């Protein structure tokens, strides 16, 4: 009874926000729902098959791909792009369906897993991100591990990431997926998350004295980019539900948007932490580049990680930097011998170019540009 009433009010709030204020209305309805009925998530999740997806990077695009795969098996509700906090989960669950494929923020995953009792949890990777909020990678991994020990879900996991590997090491049911260490040495993986000893790496392979390793897996694949690895992991997850293997356009797994600004034909890519910057920089093929750095809450308010990214591949290119913290990046590039011009805003940056330009944009800048 309480849920029915809460749903009614939440839908009304969503409708009002959408029609009267011109907003999407999804977040507000989830928010209202959870205020009126705090256990709405567990009530709405009951009776359907739930799959959760979490990671530092790639959770939005992988969730979208997986939701697409699952649609061949039944009706699917899924998170609105990037809406991965409990209110986003709640609003996604307001639609009835056979399956719910939900993206979940790293710190909220244990609580959402407890409430939704998922059939499967897909874990892609854990690296440094928003340390002002996460504090330490190991801290997030420890919370996940506690969840994995008590959950009845099947964990599908990329075990080449030592943190993810550690998380599922004592899960009741798991599918350990490896890409033979193709991702290389984990940038934050010098210490074994399980025992605290120094982890010796051979390329992307590791084997600790305590037993943690990625030499032995349940399934092994070849993939040379994060996007391809995520495609495979989504397929392995869908297979658990009898869904046949899907090939997807890898570009759709990279969060890239094409848009024209003045004379600049921009391909805009989301970047938010050292791992995603490295991936994005490796994908820069042209000579014209705009970099945008902000440091709002979701971007991470501490910009010190800039010094852990190798920007030397930009040397000799025409580089323009902007954003609220553009100067942090400009000085970083300056010390690395990358000549870059610092300008006041994106319009001024776009005005410098004609034709194709690659734009690497911080989280908040990305959403402002692509709307």
């Amino acid at each position, binding site marked *: 009874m309480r849920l029915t009433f809460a749903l009614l009010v939440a839908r009304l709030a969503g409708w009002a926000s959408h029609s009267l204020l011109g907003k999407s209305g999804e977040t507000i309805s989830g928010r209202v729902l959870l205020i009126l009925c705090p256990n709405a998530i567990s009530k709405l999740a009951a009776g359907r098959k739930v799959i959760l997806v979490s990671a530092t990077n790639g959770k939005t695009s992988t969730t979208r791909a997986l939701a697409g795969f699952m649609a061949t098996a039944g009706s699917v509700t899924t998170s609105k792009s990037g809406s991965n906090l409990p209110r986003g989960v709640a609003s996604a669950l307001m639609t009835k369906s056979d399956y719910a494929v939900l993206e979940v923020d790293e710190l909220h995953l244990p609580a959402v897993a407890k409430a939704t009792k998922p059939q499967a949890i897909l874990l892609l990777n854990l690296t440094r991100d928003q*340390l*002002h909020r996460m504090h330490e990678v*190991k801290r997030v991994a420890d919370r996940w591990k506690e969840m994995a020990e008590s959950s009845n879900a099947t964990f599908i996991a990329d075990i080449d990431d030592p943190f993810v590997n550690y998380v599922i090491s004592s899960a009741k049911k798991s599918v350990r997926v490896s890409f033979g260490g193709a991702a290389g040495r984990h940038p934050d993986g*010098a210490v074994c998350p399980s025992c605290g000893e120094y982890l010796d790496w051979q390329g992307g392979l590791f084997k600790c004295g305590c037993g943690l390793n990625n030499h032995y897996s349940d399934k092994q694949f070849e993939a040379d980019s994060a996007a391809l690895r995520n495609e495979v992991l989504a397929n392995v997850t869908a297979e658990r539900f009898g869904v046949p293997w899907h090939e997807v356009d890898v570009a759709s797994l990279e969060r890239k948007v094409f848009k024209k600004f003045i004379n600049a034909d921009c391909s805009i890519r989301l970047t938010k932490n050292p791992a995603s910057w490295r991936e994005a920089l490796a994908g820069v093929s042209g000579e014209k580049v705009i970099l945008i750095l902000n440091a709002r809450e979701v971007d991470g308010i*501490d*910009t*010190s990680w800039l010094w852990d990214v190798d920007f030397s591949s930009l040397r000799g290119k025409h580089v323009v930097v902007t954003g609220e913290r553009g100067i942090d990046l400009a000085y*970083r590039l300056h*010390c*690395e011998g990358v000549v870059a011009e610092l300008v006041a805003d994106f319009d001024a940056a776009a005005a410098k170019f004609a034709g194709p330009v690659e734009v690497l944009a911080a989280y908040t800048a990305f959403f402002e540009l692509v709307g």
Partner: protein
Amino acid sequence: MSIRIIRIHNELLGTYGDRGNADVLAFRAGLAGVKAHIVDVSYRDVLPDDGDIYLLGGAEDAAQVLSCEALRGFDFSARVVLAVCAGFQILGNSYYAGGMKQTGLGIIDMDTVPGASRFVGDIKIHSELLNVELTGFENHGGETNLNNGITPLGRVITGSGNGARGVDGAIVGNVFGTYLHGPVLARNPEFADLLLERATGRALSRVNDPLADQYAAWRRAVIK
């Protein structure tokens, strides 16, 4: 004239971009006409004793303990050292990691205990030695108590620093400790030049780098 900058255990002591301190030192040395080589020393390597500046950075708990144990026995006290966050803590008599009290390297007479809460945010201090404000970002759970006679790096204007007595860091001879990361030398060129002067043993020709000055001035202005 050339100097060797020793970046110690960056794979362990590299949580908050502190590797950049070596890059900034080498860059500014170059502008001052001093050749600089960065030597990366990993956990399995022997720490060379012919370095001119030794750099220690921030770390998570397990990495901090590994690094500290590997450095035990090396005498930092007669060298030019910049130690940030976890790297600063291990130079004391004791510190906490993994909820347990650990024995430090005893280079600075100080002890670190768990603070009441974690200190996360922008920090600004006033350095008497340089007579400038230094800015950075801090993210740590330790409260560091300097024992009698130990000089702090600066007085805290904004933020927490050592979390005790309104000061940040410590100075013992040419050993400098601080909770400012960011990395600290990128945001505070005067501090970088001080370390270069201590390493070369002479006054540097004035470094002209307007972007560095603009960056430092802006951080000092926006952190109230």
